[in-house]
């Protein structure tokens, strides 16, 4: 921190003060003056799509934005594994210093109590089924895909802590990479039915708010998730369309991504 001592430090503090005053005064001005804008229109239309406003907004109203946010997780995992040593490339013609290869962590599991030893596996299994429940619930409640992935990989981490190298959840390299690829690829390809039939990428042909999809596609993608909403005003039928499928794809992607990070950091990455 030598760079920020003395005169430079004082200047940096003054600079920070200026930035802070400017930023806070802008927030102060904004307080109470936020314009609702497009969100009014969104709110008036949301009930047409699904009983779930959050999932609708995230997956139905935003386009490549959500897809690429999913891809950010994927890229983060691939880059993390690259730092560990997966997929480091060298010029064939010009030898360089050997790439970094990380060693696996050392485990000490002798101190494991009997309870943990016998209940660890059931706990991991129940966490798995909990994660699956969360992702299937997403058609009626907010989000789900990301949470499912995090819960599943938490089970993986838990089992790794309990059992070390003899991890009962043996996510292999190929399974992790494959499920991540299936997730992100599946998410991308789920835009294809809408693209081919209506011309709009990721158009939710199951819900079909604007009535531009062919009825056969509406039946294929909408019917499996159609729910009846019994409200005071009467009984309504609505379908989230492709949103539950996107949620499953998202869950696969997150399991692949975070699983890859855990795998690479716990067991290291050696090229066979």
């Amino acid at each position, binding site marked *: 921190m030598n760079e920020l001592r003395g005169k430079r430090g004082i200047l940096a503090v003054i600079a920070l003060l200026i*930035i802070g005053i*400017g*930023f806070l005064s*802008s927030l102060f*001005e*904004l307080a109470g*003056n*936020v*314009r*609702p*804008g*497009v*969100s009014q229109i969104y709110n008036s*239309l949301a009930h047409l799509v699904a009983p779930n406003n959050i999932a609708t907004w995230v997956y*139905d*109203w*935003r*386009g*490549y*934005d959500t897809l*690429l*946010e999913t891809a*950010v997780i994927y*890229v*983060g995992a*691939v*880059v993390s*594994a*690259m*730092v560990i*040593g*997966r*997929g*480091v*490339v*060298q*010029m*064939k*013609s*010009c030898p*360089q*210093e050997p*790439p*970094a290869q990380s060693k696996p962590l050392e485990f000490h599991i002798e101190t494991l109590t009997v309870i943990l030893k016998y209940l660890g596996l059931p706990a991991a299994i129940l966490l798995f089924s909990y994660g699956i429940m969360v992702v299937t619930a997403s058609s009626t409640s907010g989000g789900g895909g990301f949470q499912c992935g995090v819960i599943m990989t938490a089970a993986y981490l838990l089992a790794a802590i309990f059992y070390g190298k003899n991890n009962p959840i043996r996510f292999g390299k190929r399974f992790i*990479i494959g499920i*991540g*690829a299936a997730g992100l690829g599946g998410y*991308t*390809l789920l*835009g294809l039915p*809408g*693209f081919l039939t*209506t*011309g*709009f*990428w*990721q158009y939710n042909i199951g819900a079909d*708010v*604007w009535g*531009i999809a062919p009825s056969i596609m509406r039946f294929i993608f909408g019917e499996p998730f159609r729910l009846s909403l019994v409200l005071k005003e009467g009984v309504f039928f609505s379908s989230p369309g492709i949103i539950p499928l996107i949620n499953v794809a998202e869950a696969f992607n997150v399991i692949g991504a975070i699983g890859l990070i855990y795998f690479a950091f716990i067991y290291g990455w050696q090229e066979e």
Partner: protein
Amino acid sequence: MTTIPSNLWSIPLIVAIPLLAAIVVNALYDKRAIRYISIISALLTLGISIISPYGYHWFTGHPAFDPTTFTFTFDPGIPGFRLSLEFFFGPMQQIMIVISSLILVFCVIMATSGLTKHQGPYLAMIFLLFASAAIIIMVNDLYHLWIAVEIGSLIVVGVVVGSGTSISHKAALKYAYFSAICGSGLAIALALLLGITGFPNVSDVVRVINIFGVGGMETILYISFGFFILSWMYAGGLAPLHPLKSEVYGASYPHATAVLQAQSKLMLVAIGIIMLRIFGTLPFVKEVMIFLSIITMMLGVVIALLQIDFRWIIAYLIISHSGLVTLGIALGTKEGIIGGIFQAVNDIIYMSVLLFCCEALYYFGGATSTRGSFGIAKKSPWLCAAVLLGAFAASGIPPFNGFQSEIILIQASINAGFPEIAVIILMVSVTTLIALLRAIYRIFLKPPENEVAANAQIPKSITIGTWLFIILTIIIGVYPDIALRFIVPFVEGGFLP
């Protein structure tokens, strides 16, 4: 350009094909099929961007809301508020994406032929790098803008880390550190804009600000502009973040640097134009952008003079010439913006020539340091000719393309009332030549003092790529209208038709 559809078929494919290619090659990891899949996908992207018509794409198929009649419409000609987020593919986007995907094609061929076996993840990063560049140049809404900058910076880290050396790890880590500051800064800027306007679409934001004003809340706009500038600096490597960005350029393989620099030029143009559209009418905004550009230009070229490695000289020159691009946009006049975008196109082309030549030096055993002299001109006279022509193009010597865009920029700055800026542009181009010729003399021309590989086989892809881009520089230099007819209608038509 009679009808502009709101569901142009090509826009999603330009992003989805690289994305799917990245997923597939990453999963294949070390199979031979990677080469064919990646080359085919790159060629597909190039083909689609060449044949595509112009238009919008409204993702997820939600129509626009017409505030005058309170109806929904799929017609983009009506000035409605866009419910869904949109991309726009126009003439400017077309030429930018075509040239970037041309670079992508050659980069992929070079990478698959010249690198060791486990190249899946690395190629995936390069595809995603192109995808982020394509998104940012087409984007017309705040959400996609943010996510493109965010994923773009993360992928830059991946591309650099891919070479696995300690210097690239350091460069990547430092760059990633600032992505945390600048990425969240851009998020704050966009949140403030969303707060005072209520619309995520850039055209809607501009319209709301023009029609309703900001109600005495200029402070918010200015703070938003400040954070915007940070992400501009970061994405394009403007001063004071140029040491990090130039390290990134220098530490990755030259073929990857070619895509990296194309991506950052596209980011500079796209974010710069969005800033001009939103904040352009505020006082002091253009001045700040002009000063930032000039400082970047001069620091880049002066530091390039001090470097002792050909890769780092090119890295700093890329930074310096980014300053030329942003200068044109910052001037804010039509002429200036034309010059800036044209400069970006030319810059991507001639820097690729230099970088491909630099890649060829790896086949002589990595002789890129100017401390030794290798006499490569004798072993490969054509490579020497190519790098000299590339240097001439970079320093704005007629009949190459650099001359055409720099003359537009010089005229634009004189017409805007800043003859000093014209002087600086001239000095930058002269100094570029000095910096490059220093290295070229030591590495190529001087009689050899150090040994290099005797019979180096330069792959055909490098030779073809280099000469193709040299021919492009000459064609655009002699007949600039071939590029300007894409750029001028975009600017004259009020940014978005």
